[in-house]
């Protein structure tokens, strides 16, 4: 199979596209306009169960300044060229660095990677979208600042701006990333620039400390959306605590998830345990470093017997709770007693920290690193679990209540089992909510299995919605379907905003199901 024909943006003539490319070259230089097949190939890597030919860009643009982004947007309006914006392009399993549809031009902001300010007194940062967590981490270390980051699992290569804009999460007390965002600079579709919050005041010193500004608060409009291009973002950073104690609690029975969540909820709400706790199922905990074929060779769901062997061999539980305490040593001792008492009451939990936890199998070492904001790439190992390069995150939200968690777990296992996939999952516990994150791993090289994965994901969305569970985030293949579960009135508001802010529909058409 060969593809040598030129790919054009939908509805754009070859003449107009050539004119647009010439204009882009004038704005950012010829070397920053990519059009060759081997240059664009990294932007075609998708891991979701879609047809790869649906996600091929016509070009990629690599600006370095806000002014260049403004000029690019003006040119796109003139020639009606749609652009799909990425920051560092590491939204793996959610669409990666590929466009939302074939023919769109990638606006890749990874070269806009300046750390504009880090203030160690008020613990804030102002960043461009191409800054990676590793880059910010190195800056903090090199300048001996007592600040911690909150990276997601692919920490070193992902970036705070892109992750926050997609409302990603991490594992420290600052785990809900959008909650700790403060102030944005945004290029609108007409090429104008706005600054949100206090940023509209000339020489304001409070842009990164006071979120709300004056009048309607609009930062949320630029997350998971296509209403503007965020070119700067403020973040709050966590002050390094005097002491830190990561710990592990293991439970061995599938139904224990109910007890775990009900014990955990009051501790999270009261901030006894302040971080975004994870409750990790066996197959996720093992899957970061164990190959499925070592335990089971079938193409259906891995059987209970094999799961029990993994638990025994690896020394991990059915559910593995990774959490941490932060503060002074005295505070930690007090809170540790509360944690031990709460989880020890039923006699089912094995509670560990320090050397004892390190000696257990599973992911204590890398989880401990993530819960203190250190860089780690261990979870890439999940891609080796089943092989074949297919991965889609199914991520419904629930209340932090044991009954809902058990309901979601059983429903997910039932649907995944029906299609022959494994339940590779974890819960991330917010203050009152939980993100149930399931990695639907499959072999993308097998067309039949890919179709099954597609059908499975679609059924998961529908069946969860019927029980009142919505997704907090999804990949580009399913954005339309997920948007539909939130109802037509909300979609109409999204569409009205899109028409007002981007009448030509040039910014990331289809993002979160929003089109003009």
């Amino acid at each position, binding site marked *: *199979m060969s593809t040598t024909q030129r790919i054009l943006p939908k509805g754009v003539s070859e003449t107009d596209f050539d004119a647009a490319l010439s204009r882009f070259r004038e704005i950012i230089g010829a070397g920053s306009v990519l059009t060759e097949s081997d240059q664009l190939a*990294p932007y075609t890597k998708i891991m979701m169960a879609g047809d790869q030919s649906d996600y091929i860009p016509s070009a990629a643009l690599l600006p370095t300044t806000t002014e260049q982004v403004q000029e690019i947007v003006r040119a796109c309006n003139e020639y009606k060229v749609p652009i799909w914006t990425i920051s560092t*392009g590491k939204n793996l399993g959610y669409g990666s*660095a590929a466009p939302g549809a074939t023919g769109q031009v990638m606006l890749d902001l990874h070269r806009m990677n300046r750390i504009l300010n880090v203030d160690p007194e008020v613990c804030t940062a102002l960043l461009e979208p191409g800054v990676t967590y590793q880059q910010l981490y190195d800056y903090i270390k090199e300048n001996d600042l007592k600040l911690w980051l909150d990276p997601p699992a692919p920490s070193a290569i992902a970036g705070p701006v892109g992750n926050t804009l997609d409302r990603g999460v991490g594992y420290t007390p600052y785990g809900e990333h959008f909650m700790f965002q403060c102030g944005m600079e945004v290029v609108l579709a007409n090429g104008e620039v706005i600054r949100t919050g206090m940023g509209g005041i000339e020489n304001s010193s409070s842009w990164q400390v006071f979120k709300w500004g004056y009048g309607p608060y609009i930062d949320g409009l630029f997350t998971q959306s296509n209403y503007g291009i965020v070119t700067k973002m403020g973040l709050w950073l966590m002050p390094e605590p005097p002491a830190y104690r990561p710990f592990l609690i293991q439970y061995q029975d599938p139904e224990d998830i109910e007890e775990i969540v009900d014990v955990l909820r009051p501790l999270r709400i009261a901030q006894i345990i302040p971080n975004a706790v994870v409750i990790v199922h066996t197959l996720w905990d093992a899957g970061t470093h164990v190959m499925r074929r070592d335990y089971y060779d079938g193409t259906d769901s891995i059987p209970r017997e094999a799961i029990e062997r993994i638990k025994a061999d690896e020394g991990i539980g059915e559910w593995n709770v990774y959490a941490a305490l932060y503060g002074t040593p005295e505070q930690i001792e007090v809170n540790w007693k509360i944690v031990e008492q709460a989880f020890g009451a039923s006699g089912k939990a094995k509670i560990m920290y320090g050397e004892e936890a390190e000696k257990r199998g599973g992911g204590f070492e890398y989880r401990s690193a993530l819960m203190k904001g250190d860089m780690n790439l261990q979870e*890439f190992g999940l891609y080796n679990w089943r092989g074949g390069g297919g991965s889609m995150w199914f991520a419904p939200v629930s209340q932090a209540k044991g009954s809902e968690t058990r309901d979601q777990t059983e429903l997910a296992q039932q649907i995944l089992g029906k299609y022959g996939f494994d339940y590779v999952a974890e819960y991330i516990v917010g203050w009152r909510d939980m993100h149930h994150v399931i990695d639907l791993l499959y072999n993308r*090289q097998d067309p039949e299995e890919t179709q099954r994965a597609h059908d499975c994901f679609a059924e998961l969305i529908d069946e969860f919605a019927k029980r009142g569970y919505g997704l907090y985030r999804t990949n580009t293949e399913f954005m339309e379907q997920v948007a539909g579960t939130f109802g037509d009135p909300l979609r109409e508001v999204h569409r009205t905003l899109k028409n007002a802010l981007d009448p030509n529909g040039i910014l990331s058409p289809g993002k979160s199901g929003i089109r003009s």
Partner: protein
Amino acid sequence: MNLTRRQLLKNGMLVGASAPLSLGAAWAAERGLADAPVHGPIRLYGSDRSTTELGLGLRQQGWEPRYEGRLDPLALNALPAGALVTGFTDEAGLVLLTSLLAGRGRILALGRHEAGQHRLLSHRGPVAAPLAEERGSWQAALGREYARLALANDAGRHAEYFRRSGGAAENASELSFLVQL
């Protein structure tokens, strides 16, 4: 599996090795290697026999493979622009490698070598050779093909499927890549 010193010497990939040049030259002539590399260095990643053989194929076509060990995609950031990189990795390595190349490099070719089948994806024109094993292993044939693609000026995406022979032991799934920074 780590490469043995003998395997490394065979392919001229032991950095700083004091191998007798005459021995190396005699062996090279026997294996059909070029007298001296004419195309320059190419970084070679992987940690088993497949990597050795891939290096052999590259060397036969006049490239100078430099063995770098197991692929750490993050380490590629330290390589100069234009550097050619090839080798074998696992699924996680491939995901990381390809995602790091967006806006930073070119994917010239990717190979997925599974039981009974090779799947080759080229962005430098059609794949010419069906990884024939008459002149040795399929990995060496892949090296020769990657050597050709590294110099090709063609464009377009071309996917080819070839039959893979060999017993079960040789049929483990492997992933190859050829990229340019």
